[in-house]
């Protein structure tokens, strides 16, 4: 039977929802599910992890050098725990993508990126070519499965469980060659892009940082998170953490509204899992209309104020 270890993601305060999504993927694989929480002062986070449905136990490794999520430190600690597990999973967030390949290489195995579906305990579906093809990949017999879980493909496990928590000291030592300096967070108080039910996004068509105010304003009316195309980020209208797409965030809100976004494949791959896609673009030939559920050919600077009035 499979024994699955999930490496938790958190910000030092609370568990990231991507971990609960990894649990759902682990349930699809089937077997015993444990979660490792690395950090400093992580009791509350460990308790959150232990409450996730079908989690057997949480191993909380509390150490100063694990406080920041440096891949070199976390990978060494994961390696110390890996013995006996058939599967090691992390989310395909930037943190998981940074960490899991390092663990896989130390274990001498290839890694599977972005599991979207489970065929069997060692065969999975994953996207390639910006989501334009889906392949089946199978792990060779007897090899440990190390993988990241595509979080837009999975719902979060409920918090109805009651796993045990085992707090331990670290097995590994701090690496000297890498030092954490800090994090400058771009976002404000709006709902997190990766878990928001509604997302309003703007592209190059919005035209400036100043103009982006109307995107924020509509988002606030709808209680939505705010996303952007790469072009909008590159032009400096918004911070990098808002980028949606192949090389940004892959999201799956119930409602995605794109304003002034043309619909390049690299952008579209980030929103294909959305429930309903709305596109407003003044070019009626824009490729975004090929995938939009509801399209409106029009000027965003006229449409958004009208929408706001109608929603008031």
């Amino acid at each position: 039977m499979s024994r699955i270890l999930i490496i938790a993601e958190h910000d030092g305060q609370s568990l990231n929802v991507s971990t609960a999504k990894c649990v759902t993927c682990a349930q699809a694989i089937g077997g015993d599910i444990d979660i490792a929480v690395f950090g400093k002062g992580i009791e509350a986070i460990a308790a959150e992890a232990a409450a996730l449905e079908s989690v057997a136990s949480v191993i909380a490794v509390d150490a100063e050098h694990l406080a920041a999520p440096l891949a070199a430190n976390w990978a060494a600690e994961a390696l110390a725990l890996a013995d006996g597990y058939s599967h090691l999973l992390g989310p395909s967030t930037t943190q998981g993508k940074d960490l899991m390949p390092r663990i896989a290489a130390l274990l001498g195995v290839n890694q599977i990126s972005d599991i979207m579906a489970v065929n069997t305990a060692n065969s999975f579906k994953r996207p390639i070519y910006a989501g334009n093809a889906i392949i089946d990949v199978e792990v060779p017999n007897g090899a440990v499965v190390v993988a990241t879980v595509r979080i837009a493909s999975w719902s979060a496990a409920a918090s109805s469980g009651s796993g045990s928590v085992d707090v331990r000291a670290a097995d590994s030592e701090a690496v000297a060659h890498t030092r954490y300096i800090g994090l400058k967070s771009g976002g404000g108080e709006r709902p997190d892009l990766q878990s928001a039910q509604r997302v309003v996004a703007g592209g190059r068509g919005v035209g400036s940082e100043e103009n982006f105010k109307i995107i924020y304003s509509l988002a606030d009316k709808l209680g939505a998170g705010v996303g952007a195309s790469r072009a909008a980020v590159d032009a400096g209208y918004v911070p990098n953490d808002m980028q949606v797409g192949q090389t940004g965030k892959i999201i799956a809100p119930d409602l995605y509204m794109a304003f002034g976004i043309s619909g390049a494949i690299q952008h579209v791959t980030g929103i294909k899992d959305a429930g309903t896609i709305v596109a407003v673009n003044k070019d009626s030939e824009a490729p975004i209309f090929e995938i939009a559920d509801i399209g409106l050919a029009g000027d965003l600077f006229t449409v958004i104020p009208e929408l706001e009035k109608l929603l008031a």
Partner: protein
Amino acid sequence: MKILVGIKRVVDYNVRIRVLSDGSGVDTDGVKMSVNPFDEIALEEALRIRDAGNAEEVIVVSAGGDECQQQLRTGLAMGADRAIQIQTSADLQPLSTARAFLKIIEREDPGLVLLGKQAIDDDNSQTAQMLAALWDRPQATFASKLELDGQSATVTREVDAGLETIEVDLPAVISVDLRLNEPRFVKLPDIMKAKRKPLDVIPLEELGVAAEGNLEVGHYAPPPQREKGIMVEDAAQLVEELKNRGLI
């Protein structure tokens, strides 16, 4: 200091890829091939570091069949000093690529290895992290800013929560993100000059690396299609539709 830059030959980012109807792969017949866009950014950064006097030599490295010499020549035309092809007909997965790169590192002793954050064909995003692990050196992935400071580098990383800064001792492996720089365009005379720059071909076996432990890739399928949508005339109709679907 030498800088090693990974150059992967991939289907051009503008090509709309199509899955073959028998599910055996994707159609790459007559499709435009290019340098992985992130690798151009990695190379641009390496050239700027060299031209600022902080490195002596930039070496571009590609693992693949002889056709990847085209992309290495592009790298030479951009300004790299020499090129190495790790010659193999196998489709290397990141672990084997990292093992092969490690052998080149042992031969060349670089102070910095710059790779792309991901190859846009397989979208793996693994090779840099694996190489750093095997080499037992620091990794700084998804870099959008890089400052060298003697024996270390300060790297700003694009992460989900914003911009993270870390400091790594050299040698290190850094994977680059889109906003690190804008790669230069290649000029015609540079293409001519690149033909005379050295390009070494080293068979993968000569490095003592085999493409083994691979994940077996089975069936290819096109992504699920979304149902055809509708067009509305104005904001009022849009709101009406959203209400009908229970979305607002």
